[in-house]
Structures are given as structure tokens and as C-alpha cells.
């Protein structure tokens, strides 16, 4: 590791923040657009009125650090959630810049939407504190969004992306429930390998109705199935990802980026390798982040006997396909790429399996029907069947695995 890394380790992070703030324009272009929200907090606290069916989010893009399961520190680019911090204020945007600096999360904060919402997602590009030589714009690509427009697709080639110190508000009307994902699409091979990825799913409009399927009543559903066949009691977003530590090290060391030799050696679920995946809490933040939590997503799955558990599985790694499988219980696959698995005339195309293979940019909705007679204390496993990826670099036994604990 070289100078910048050591610098960050040895100098109080406050100094870094100060440098960051000083380097940005005084007012910048930070503007959070959210109907009914006057102070730019992207929420309606303090007496503001939330319009019906409206959802707002404020994400920042920047850099930070995460810790791999073997202790390896990794430099990342990423998103973090600034929702709740006033941004449109006369006194300036210091709070936003302070909150968004060195705040990158991996994976990005999960985005949960409801079908039919008016969604206003503001992205503020804070910039990469550890790479002052970079001036990269960023974007949010709502991956799989049906009937996209070019302006809100987040594809830099066909639309716009946002420069450092400024904000861009995306508007989406999610009409179709299902499991999507989001990522930055600017220089995608680099920014995605560096960590700008997260889960995104749209809950079905049918939620709240009661449907009985195989003798069980459900009020939550993966899709508008009309018959309760996608009903679930609990849901877990599970994002497959993996890092090539050589690429991340080259980035923090300001070296040429090894695209051709990219080969991921840290396979993960929701940004962690086993056994960190089953830690229910945010991981201890690296001191290099100024102790801001950066790995907040546990993949520990818990359920009671008789419950149906919806796994919203997506893959956003950039180097290969992965097979994810179960041990001890099979998966009932009811959705693929945010579509109910049915033919055009309604034929049931769902199936049971113990393994699913997903490339980058694919998603699957799988339901675990925990048998009613399961003994509490039973543990099932969900792990990659590409067995060499049950590792955290050289460390066996870890990587892309988590547990399904029956309580």
C-alpha cells in the first residue's frame, strides 16, 4: 500500500474531510427534489406533508473502505444513504458533505419500493476523497426497469450523469413488482468492480390482500399472482458479488487498472464473505472510513417452522456467472428478472430446484417453504456450488455462503 492509504491511516480523518469540503464549490449544485419536502431531507419530518404514494431517497456517491472476511482492507467506490439530512438550506451543505464523504457502503443501501409509487431518487456526487486525481461523474442505473426512458436510465452514453458537487434527481414509476438491482453505469467495468452496486426491489400491489395458498394465508406476495402462490412471510434481498483485490489495490495505489486480468478472489453475499455473512449486525467500520459503517447488510436468514421465505437473489459481479444452491431444503423459483414465472396465457412455469445459476444482471425470486415439522435449531445452508468460491482469497472455508437458521 502506498502513500495515500498510509496518509489516511495516520492523519485524523477530520483533516481529510476538511480538505474535501474545501475542494468543492461553495454551494455546489446540491439540490434534493422531493414533493412536499422543503428542506431537502428527502423525507417529511418536522411537519412536512408526504403526498400520497410518494417515495424519496437521497443517495451520495463517493469512496470508502470495507473489510473482507479474512481481514483484508479494500478501497471501494460506493453509494450511501443521506435521506433525512437537510440539504436545501441557507447555511450551506456542510452536513451533507460531511455525511457523504468516505461513506461508501458495500453493497449500496437496499432500495425498497412499492408498486405504483412516485419515486424521486436524488444522487449527490460527493467525489472520491482518496482519489483527488479523479473527477468521475456517477449515475444510478435502475437495472431492468421496464419501458425505460433515456434520461433516467443512468446510462452515461445515452443520457446524463452527475458531476462532483452536484445532484441529479431521477424519477421512476415502478408499475411492475419484482426483483431488480441498481448500480452506477459510468465506466461500468471499473465503477462496478469498485462496488457501486445494490439491491432494489418493488413490492407487489397485491400486498395487503389475503390469499390462501396450500392451506396458508398470505398477505405479502412477490408478484400479483391472483392466487397466493408467491405469498411469503419474510423476504431477504441477497446480492451475489465478488471483488478482485488486485483491482482495488491498483485503484487506491493510483496504478493502471487491470481489466484484462480481472479475476475475483473475494466471493460475497451482500458485500460479505462467510462467516461475516451471518453476523446480524453492521460490521465494525474500518478506521480508514472515519468509523462510518460501510457493510450494513447481513445475509443471516432466520425463519420459523412453517414459514415461507422469499429470497430476492440478484447478481451484480462483473467477472463471471455463479451458481447458488441450498442444502437441506429446496427452492421454489417463482420469478425471474422481475417477472412472475408464467406463460402468456398463465401457464405455471415455476419449478423447484436446489441450484440456480445467475450471470451479472440477472435476478431470481425463490421461496423456501420451511416444513411445519422442522425442528427448531435446524440450520440449512445457501452457498455457491462453484466450490472454489467458498473462500476468502487464500482462506478456506468462507466466501459465498450463508445460513438459514430455523428458530
Amino acid at each position, binding site marked *: 500500500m502506498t502513500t495515500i492509504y498510509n496518509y489516511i491511516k495516520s492523519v485524523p480523518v477530520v483533516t481529510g474531510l476538511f480538505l474535501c469540503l474545501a475542494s468543492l464549490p461553495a454551494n455546489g449544485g446540491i439540490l434534493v427534489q422531493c414533493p412536499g419536502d422543503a428542506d431537502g431531507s428527502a423525507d417529511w419530518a418536522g411537519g412536512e406533508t408526504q403526498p400520497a404514494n410518494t417515495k424519496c431517497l437521497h443517495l451520495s456517491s463517493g469512496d470508502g473502505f470495507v473489510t473482507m472476511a479474512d481481514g483484508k482492507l479494500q478501497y471501494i467506490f460506493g453509494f450511501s444513504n443521506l435521506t433525512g439530512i437537510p440539504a436545501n438550506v441557507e447555511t450551506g451543505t456542510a452536513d451533507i458533505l460531511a455525511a457523504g464523504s468516505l461513506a461508501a457502503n458495500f453493497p449500496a443501501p437496499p432500495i425498497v419500493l412499492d408498486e405504483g409509487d412516485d419515486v424521486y431518487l436524488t444522487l449527490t456526487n460527493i467525489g472520491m476523497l482518496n482519489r483527488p486525481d479523479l473527477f468521475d461523474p456517477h449515475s444510478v442505473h435502475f437495472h431492468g426497469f421496464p419501458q425505460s426512458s433515456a434520461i433516467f436510465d443512468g*446510462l452515461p452514453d445515452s443520457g446524463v450523469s452527475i458531476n462532483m458537487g452536484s445532484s441529479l434527481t431521477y424519477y421512476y414509476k415502478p408499475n411492475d413488482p419484482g426483483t431488480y438491482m441498481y448500480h452506477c453505469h459510468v465506466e461500468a467495468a471499473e465503477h462496478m468492480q469498485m462496488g457501486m452496486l445494490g439491491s432494489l426491489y418493488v413490492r407487489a400491489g397485491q400486498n395487503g390482500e389475503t390469499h390462501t395458498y396450500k392451506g396458508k394465508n398470505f398477505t405479502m406476495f412477490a408478484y400479483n399472482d391472483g392466487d397466493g402462490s408467491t405469498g411469503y412471510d419474510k423476504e431477504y434481498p441477497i446480492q451475489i458479488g465478488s471483488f478482485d483485490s488486485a483491482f482495488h489495490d491498483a485503484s487506491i495505489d493510483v496504478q493502471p487498472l487491470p481489466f484484462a486480468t480481472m479475476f475475483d478472489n473475494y466471493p460475497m453475499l451482500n458485500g460479505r464473505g462467510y462467516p461475516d455473512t451471518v453476523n446480524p449486525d453492521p460490521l465494525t467500520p474500518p478506521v480508514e472510513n472515519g468509523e462510518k459503517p460501510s457493510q450494513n447488510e447481513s445475509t443471516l436468514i432466520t425463519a420459523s417452522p412453517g414459514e415461507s421465505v422469499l429470497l430476492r437473489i440478484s447478481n451484480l459481479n462483473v467477472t463471471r456467472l455463479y451458481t447458488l444452491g441450498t442444502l437441506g431444503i429446496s427452492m421454489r423459483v417463482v420469478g425471474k428478472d422481475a417477472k412472475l414465472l408464467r406463460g402468456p396465457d398463465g*401457464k405455471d*412455469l415455476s419449478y423447484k430446484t436446489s441450484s440456480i445459476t445467475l450471470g451479472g444482471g440477472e435476478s431470481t425470486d425463490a421461496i423456501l417453504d420451511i416444513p411445519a415439522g422442522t425442528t427448531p435449531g435446524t440450520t440449512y445452508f445457501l452457498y455457491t456450488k462453484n466450490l472454489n468460491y467458498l473462500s476468502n482469497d487464500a482462506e478456506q472455508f468462507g466466501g459465498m455462503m450463508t445460513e438459514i437458521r430455523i428458530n
Partner: protein
Amino acid sequence: MKRELKTTMHCLFCTALFLFFLTGNSQAGIDGITGTTFALTVKTGRVNTPDGASLLLWGYANGNDPAQYPGPTLIVNQGETITITLSNELTVTGTGPAPNVSMVFPGHQATSSLSNPGVPGILANEARPGDSVTYTFTATHPGTYLYYSGTDPALQVEMGLLGAIIVRPSDGSSYAYNHPDTQFDREYLFLLSEMDPRIHEVVELDGAEGLAATDYLSNPFPVVWFINGRNAPDTLDQPGTGSLPNQPYNSAPLVHPGERLLMRVIGGGKDLHPFHHHGNHARIIARDGRLLESIPGAGPDLSHEVYTIQSVPGETVDAIFQWTGKGLNWDIYGTPEAGPQFVHDCTDGDADDYDDTTYEYCPDHGKKFPVILPDNLDLAFGGFYSGSPYFGNLGSLPPGEGGLNPFGGYAFMWHSHTEKELTNFDIFPGGLMTMLVIVPQGAPIP
């Protein structure tokens, strides 16, 4: 970010698209050769990649034409008996003789002709150097197929010996299969493949026997990725361009709103590629030339929609893509608040929710653009950005920005979502990527 690279690629895109739109002399749909009798020749050529490399090619050629990557797309009709005479004119470096070559036709029952059987190989009869072999098959099933060399395929397919076959159904050339639900307005081929330059270098310098000292064939590490034999941004250049003499096919899909676009996606290489199409879902109606139907005649009743097609080696996928902008909840054709030029009607005489001419989704008509866009100084612009969020509109952009989207369409990237494959031997962007441009009704599509 490397600014100079971006500018260079921008210029490449610009030149390619500018020519593509303005000269308009490219062939529509899928380029290829038609008939029932084909004379193909195997010979050497060069594959040019945008990083500046030139790789040795072993390619199929149409008769005396240059070798090409991929080989000629054979477009035939269901029920016809197809005869292909393959001549081996391959020349090689090194001490060994030129290898035999052959063709296999997964999805069809091919035989070698009794009058010109070639010599027996493991997967197919083969043509010896300087000799030929003739294959015959009946195109019993419509659909999308792959052909490739059945001789030492780990080497010969890597070297370039592969191509596509399209069998038109009896129902006619606007159908993918014999069912009304498979009708399409436009079709495009996406033959996905990859190369490991080390293999090509060894074969060029030392001959194929030089590979014996390596593990390259058993443990390949591709670093260039192709659609229809080209890497982005060359995918968007004209078909038959002189700068790519052995890579005549492009991949530059264009479509109008509401039209049904048939994607014929082929896994031509040895790796899987998740082919993500921005813009909308696509409905997979067939795999490997067989309609996804529960009983014959049912139509694609077992079809399903995806936003990423998992393309598997040797497999073909037919999918229907359609885009209208339905349900965006703002009028993509603009509202009067945005300026007088946006005043328009949505006329739905046939009560299908769409304008009868433009295919505007009428329930969204008149709804204004939902947010305020940042100032230009706060934004980075893409070359395909029209300068306006509105469909079919050209807005103002700073000097040097935009320019690739003369009709103000919506451009969507269609690409491998193994994003590593968006590079040309270490250089981003490139690789297995192209742009679909949805252009307004009336905008010409070659």
C-alpha cells in the same frame, strides 16, 4: 476516468454512427447469403480489434470472397434441402500440414454427400487441405442456429470457424416460427463470442503445434469479446466497411416505438455471457430453434420475459423486444410547458391506448416532466444524448457534446453484464456491447 480515452472512443462512436445514419446504404436486418446451395471456403484472414491489434483468423468465406468472422450467415427456407460444399484453402505457419476442416449443424440432421464425402473425422466428415467435402441437410425446423467446425473445435472455433444459420418458416419471412405470435417487424442477430489472443499469436508464429507447449487451449483466458465478429465501438460501424475487411457484419439495431424486434442471440464461443438489453424486457420464445410451446401449434405459451438473456455456449435464443415508453407517467413527447414545439395530440382511434401513428401511450399524454434537470455545467453528457429528455427532440448541448443521435431517439446499451467484457484487451470501453436506438416514427431505418 481517462479523459483522452473517452474522447477517442467518443470520436469512434461518432464516426460510426454518423456514417451509419447519414449514408443509409447498409442492408436492413440481418446480413447474409441466401439460397439452397452454398460454396464455402476456409482460409486465413485478420480480425482487427479496436485496441489496435490484428489477430490471425481462420474463417469461412463465401466462395472466393475473403474469409470472414463470423462466417457467412446462411439464410434458408424451411423444407428446403440445403447443400454446402466446403473447400479447404487454409494455409499455416510451421512445420506441420494445414489441418482438415469441417462443419457441424446442431439442430439439423446433416450428412456428407456420397459424391463428395471428404474424409471421416470424429464429429463430422472433413475436407483435407486443398480438398473439399459436401454436406446436405433438410431445413426441417425454422429458427436460429449455429454452425461451426467439428474438427479440433477447441482450436478451430477459437480461430474463427463459426457462423449462423437462419431458417425462415413456411409462414413467411416476417415470422420467426409458424405461429402468429412469432411475427416481427425487424430482426437483428447477436452472435456472441470471445478470443484469447495468445492462441492466435502462437498459431501465427509457430503453427498450431506450438500450442502443445502451452495450456492455452485447455485453459483459455479471453480478453476480447465480440458481437457478430466485432468489438465495440466497431459493432456500430457500417457493415462491409473497408477498415474491417474480414469482419463484414455490424450490430447496430434500430427500431421504432411499438415495433416487434426479434433478437436472435447465439452463444458462439466457449463462455457464458449474460446479455443485458436496456430499455425493456424481452420475451424468450424459442431456444435452439424450437418454439417454447406446450403442444405443437400452441404458439410460445411457455415463453417468459427477461431483462438479461443468459447466453450459453452453443445455444441460440429467439426473443421479442418491444418498446413504447408505456407507463413512465410523464409525456415523453413533451408538454406545452416545455415549449410550443411540444404541442401535440394523442389520437387513439382504435382504443389500444396508443396513438394510431406515433405509438405514444395516451394515458401518459400531457403529464409534465417530473423533475428539474441540473445545469449543463453540473452534468456529463453521453454521445447518444439528444440534449433533451423528450423523445424525438433535439435539445441544445455544449459544443462537442452529443451528436450520435440525429433523430433524438432513445439509445439503450445492449451488452454483456459480465462488465469485464466491455473492454478490448485492457481498454475500456469496448467489447461485447452495442447500442439499440429507438427512433421516432418516420425516422428512416436502413
